[in-house]
């Protein structure tokens, strides 16, 4: 297996080097930007008071300077970097996965390898496992860096208990990257050509990841709490807001579209039936670890199924 791993790294060294450089650079950049955000010295209290300035709040001159610098770095560097890490993981999975089997079929080297291999599945494992292990490591570094960046961007909220930018950090980055990798390996094995595999995998990857997130949207309400719209719980940072609805005095939930009402400047609402209140359907940030784990587990299961399907394809496929 070690020999196979060495050969795999040798065969795909340029792609893997590019992918590793891309992810490591983004990770290092995220940590540097996080350090710069910390270095502004803008405390959570200072940032809160700065945000309150347009609404009559007050902040010291020093706080205003620090907060201004903080948000300047945040918008210029931290936000784009956060998005980039979210996009780089699937891109890395795509680039590393599409060529893994497809190039050997395209270059006809699969003829030699498969004529020597007593088990094509073992050959496939020798190709996929080292690259998957490398990607897992790289994705984990990127996920950690992005989480630290998120911690620096929102110092008052624990990123592990927050849904903010969840798909660009933590377990989701790793799971999305590995899912796209598995799609690309399978499509490469089916098509046997690198460029068509890259294009097709990109399309299927987007549809599949999108499909998983759409399914998640259908599942999330089961994890949500119904909370008063103006309660502290509803305003809690890191929570995932799903919807706002009207709760009638009977406890029945109705869509806001069904009522004509006005929200007054003093916070009261007129026009709703007696006893009715506006409530939020909110998944508290404390449930993020569970939701994140379930999502990652679903993606991991799909990835494993796709790789098993790849083994089936490779066992039955012509080498060229």
């Amino acid at each position, binding site marked *: 297996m070690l020999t196979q791993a060495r050969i795999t790294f040798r065969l795909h060294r340029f792609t893997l080097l590019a992918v590793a450089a891309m992810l490591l650079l983004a990770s290092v950049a995220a940590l540097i930007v996080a350090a710069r955000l910390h270095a502004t010295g803008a405390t959570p209290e200072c940032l809160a008071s700065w945000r309150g300035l347009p609404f009559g709040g007050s902040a010291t001159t020093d706080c205003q300077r620090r907060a201004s610098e903080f948000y300047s770095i945040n918008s210029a560097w931290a936000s784009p970097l956060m998005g980039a890490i979210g996009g780089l993981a699937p891109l890395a999975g795509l680039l590393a996965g599409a060529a893994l089997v497809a190039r050997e079929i395209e*270059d*006809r*080297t699969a003829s030699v390898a498969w004529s*020597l*291999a007593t088990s094509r599945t*073992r050959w496939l494992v020798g190709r996929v496992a080292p690259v998957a292990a490398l990607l897992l490591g790289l994705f984990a570094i990127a996920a950690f860096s992005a989480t630290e960046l998120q911690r620096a961007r929102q110092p008052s909220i624990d990123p592990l208990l927050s849904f903010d930018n969840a798909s660009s950090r933590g377990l989701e980055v790793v799971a999305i990257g590995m899912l796209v990798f598995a799609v690309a390996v399978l499509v490469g094995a089916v098509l046997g050509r690198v460029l068509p595999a890259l294009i097709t995998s990109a399309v299927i990857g987007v549809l599949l990841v999108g499909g998983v997130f759409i399914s998640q949207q259908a599942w999330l309400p089961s994890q949500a709490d119904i909370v008063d719209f103006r309660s502290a719980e509803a305003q809690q940072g890191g929570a995932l807001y799903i919807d706002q609805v009207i709760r009638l005095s009977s406890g029945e939930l109705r869509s806001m579209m069904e009522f004509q009402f006005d929200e007054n400047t003093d916070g009261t609402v007129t026009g709703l039936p007696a006893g009715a209140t506006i409530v939020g359907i909110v998944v508290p940030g404390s449930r993020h670890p569970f939701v994140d784990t379930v999502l990652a587990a679903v993606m991991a299961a799909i990835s494993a199924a796709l790789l098993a399907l790849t083994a089936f394809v490779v066992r039955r496929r*012509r080498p060229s």
Partner: protein
Amino acid sequence: MTTTTDSPPLQTYALSKTYGRRFGRRIEALRDVDLAIPAGSITALVGPNGAGKSTLIRGFIGFERPTSGRMTVMGEDPWRDRGRAIKHTGYVPQNASLYRSLTVAQHLDMGASLRPQFDRAVARRRLEELDIPLDRRADELSGGQQAQVGLALALGTRAEVLLLDEPLAALDPLARREFLSVLVSAVRADGSTALLSSHVITDIESACDRLVVLGGGRILLDDTLAAAVDGHRIAAPEDPPAGVLVATFPGPAGKVMALWRADDGGRPATLDEVVLGYLASGRPTRSDRPN
């Protein structure tokens, strides 16, 4: 080297292979092929492009699934029991198909990691005898050297059966001669069985002891090389010897020649003429051309 069965090392039973059925077009690469390659022989598989040579060889290595019929390698079905059948085979594909960025030594490492019984020392010794540097990358080798590395990988498997799919096609005459010399000495030394497809009749004559002529997916001739030459005569169609006409075909200077299965009359046929005659006999007629 021992064989695991008394049956011929390579055998097919009413083997047919059809391509392209799903798209409405059918190309019959092999049609009801019954073949038995005896142990210890070096058999030449000859035929025009599209005759089904590669399909047959790739079937034996488990790369093609028979449409109907059966094939066995040392008694094992290479499609159903690929893992077991492949242990008995060494394969040299067209154009060596080496990993360009790997060195020769890394190819041998790969062979050893994929095939537990791979004998690295044997492969290494053969390459060293040919002065092929083990630390050289495959894309830095000449075509002849690449073919030799491909052959060394196949020989390193110490398999009972060697399958060679037109390995000589891209080689110059000297490289072809060298390749065949290594092949013949290895097969004779190991007592293995080889099936070699080729277009070059002179190479076959020097290396092989059996001849299978394939045309239009059917076997047109299957005999020892000596019997194939001794049992055929060339005579003008209007002056037939006592025998069976195989086919007429254009000879030098546009003269029509006729190949007869006969022991006397006319003049002895050369191997080239035997092959040409049988290929001419197997030319598809309008009714049996693929759609």
